[in-house]
């Protein structure tokens, strides 16, 4: 008893109904644009590629957490403050208290994930919008961060981490560089330039693959597989799509949402740890506005602000677009203040496009 009035769906239309589509097209366009306009500026030389790859990877790390949380139907805008907070915690514990760096990092992760749990519990128990609850934490954590650092050091920036991370096994996982031999070989065969002066003369300008990028790739793959291939992923979609319907069939919506808040905090802590280890210092203003940048990546990537639909791969592509455009404008020598104009425009375009996609899926007109 098939309803013969249902149109056969064309392959094109089927391809359209994927959350990543807009981001995929956007990524191609952005690369095309910069290849044309900035192809000879060093942007696509190894050091240039490393530059925008690292920036994109940073965005991707927090975007994965924001993406899964948004699909589960919630926001976390305390991510940026969480980054500053986690960094200061690591720096205070290791530099001021003299704890080993790996202990400090683990402590920061425990504290951040616990804060994520608090965020989630407050949202679930009070029934308040997560926007408001995490907005409160945006201020609370930023304030605590500045207060803690002033209290312990009379400064808002705590340096000296760099000397401590040498030979620390856990610090390497966040700030290290892998595949050095491969990159040295690239340099030997002339694929990568070498330093010409200073103590590092003769070494390749790109030492290897930063762990930051490895983290981004691992988190994106983890998030994608979790979301699309597992039972828990189905529950994430269900919790964000219609929490009441999910509860009817026995999905533990509260647990799913709280876990996603914790995962978002975890991602923020990964971001913070990589940053502290790489730059050797933590500052109270780190991570400022990062929550919105994460949300922008996610939305460009095709995830609906209302939850229940989206893609981690899309969010990762959103992060690439964001990173490439931000750094690329510098390579073109363009006025960097226009970056925000571009960002706002692309965000608006992405949201309009996503709304259109959703109409196609649900068959609304």
């Amino acid at each position, binding site marked *: *008893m*098939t*309803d013969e009035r*249902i149109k*056969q*769906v064309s392959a094109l239309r089927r391809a359209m*109904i994927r959350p990543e589509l807009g981001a995929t097209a956007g990524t191609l366009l952005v690369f095309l644009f910069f290849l044309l306009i900035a192809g000879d500026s060093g942007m696509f030389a190894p050091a240039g590629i490393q530059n925008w790859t690292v920036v994109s990877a940073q965005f991707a790390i927090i975007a994965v957490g924001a993406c899964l949380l948004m699909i589960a139907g919630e926001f976390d805008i305390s991510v940026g403050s969480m980054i500053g907070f986690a960094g200061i915690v690591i720096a205070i514990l290791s530099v001021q208290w003299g704890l080993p760096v790996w202990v400090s990092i683990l402590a920061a992760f425990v504290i951040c994930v616990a804060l994520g749990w608090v965020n989630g519990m407050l949202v679930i128990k009070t029934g308040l919008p997560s926007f408001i609850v995490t907005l409160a934490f945006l201020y609370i954590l930023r304030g605590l961060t500045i207060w803690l650092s002033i209290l312990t050091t009379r400064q808002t920036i705590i340096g000296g981490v760099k000397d401590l991370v040498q030979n620390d096994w856990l610090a390497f996982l966040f700030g290290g560089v892998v595949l050095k031999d491969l990159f040295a070989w690239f340099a030997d065969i002339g694929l990568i330039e070498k330093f010409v002066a200073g103590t590092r003369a003769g070494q390749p300008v790109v030492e290897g693959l930063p762990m930051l990028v490895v983290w981004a790739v691992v988190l994106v793959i983890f998030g994608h*597989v979790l979301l699309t*291939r*597992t*039972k828990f*992923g*189905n*529950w994430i*979609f*269900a919790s964000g*799509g*219609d929490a*009441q*319907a*999910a509860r*009817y*069939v*026995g*999905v533990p919506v509260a647990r799913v949402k709280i876990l996603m808040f914790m995962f978002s905090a975890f991602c923020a802590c990964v971001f913070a740890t990589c940053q502290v280890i790489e730059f050797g210092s933590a500052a109270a203003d780190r991570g400022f506005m990062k929550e919105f940048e994460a949300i922008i990546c996610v939305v460009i990537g095709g995830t*609906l602000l209302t939850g*229940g*639909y989206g893609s981690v791969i899309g969010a990762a592509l959103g992060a690439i677009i964001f990173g490439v455009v931000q750094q690329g404008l510098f390579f073109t020598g363009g006025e960097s203040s226009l970056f925000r104009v571009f960002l706002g425009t692309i965000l608006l375009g992405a949201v309009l496009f996503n709304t259109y996609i*959703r109409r196609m*899926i*649900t*068959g*609304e007109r």
Partner: protein
Amino acid sequence: MSAPLIELKSIEKHFGPVIALSGVTFDVKAGECHCLLGDNGAGKSTFIKTMSGVHKPSSGEILVDGKKIAFESPRDAMAAGIATVYQDLAMIPLMSVTRNFWMGREPEKRFGPFKFIDFDKANKVTLEEMASMGIHLRGAEQAVGTLSGGERQTVAIARAVYFGAKVLILDEPTSALGVRQTSNVLATIDKVRKRGIGVVFITHNVRHAMAVGDRFTVLNRGKTLGTAKRGEVKPEELQDLMAGGKELAELEGSLGGTI
């Protein structure tokens, strides 16, 4: 016919001073479609929620397979084989048919230390179950939002049936549908009934009820006015009962003295 799968006797439900149900007697047997008719505000929703374990009755008793039982939660009712398909269907339009069908009970396969959803199995079963209800989907991966209202209703019914419902409560399944969609859903009800499942069909549309029902009970102002078998009652009479406009004496004859 056999003994009732579920039997509710003189159920009353009070919310503070408000009396929502004041004596409802209802039962459903295996393989029959028992229609519960009532106008808006007659107490249909409260009654469904009592039968599906959301509310506890203030007085009266519920028997499942002849044994007295008290549902503490919807989960208890589900465990006893009583599945409810609510008017809003509990479907998520943006998710695929498969994901909706298996939501909360996803089949898994092991891959090393990890467990993933067994999509091959999930899609196959979904398509089979839908086909057995007479709906042939293009693909199980299509979003529920692309389905028509009747098809969505069928997904919800197929889901309940597949997961072992003995009694299926359908809350106004045809109220928002067009003629053709409605006939599809009524055909689905017929298929479910033939599998030996007891169907409780809640509606305020007498014609829909007459099309598929084996027995008819009218609910008015929180009370059941009696149960009639198919062929014992005319549509006009049911209509009048729902409106509550006829004299009791006049009704007595046609309903076989069950008031």
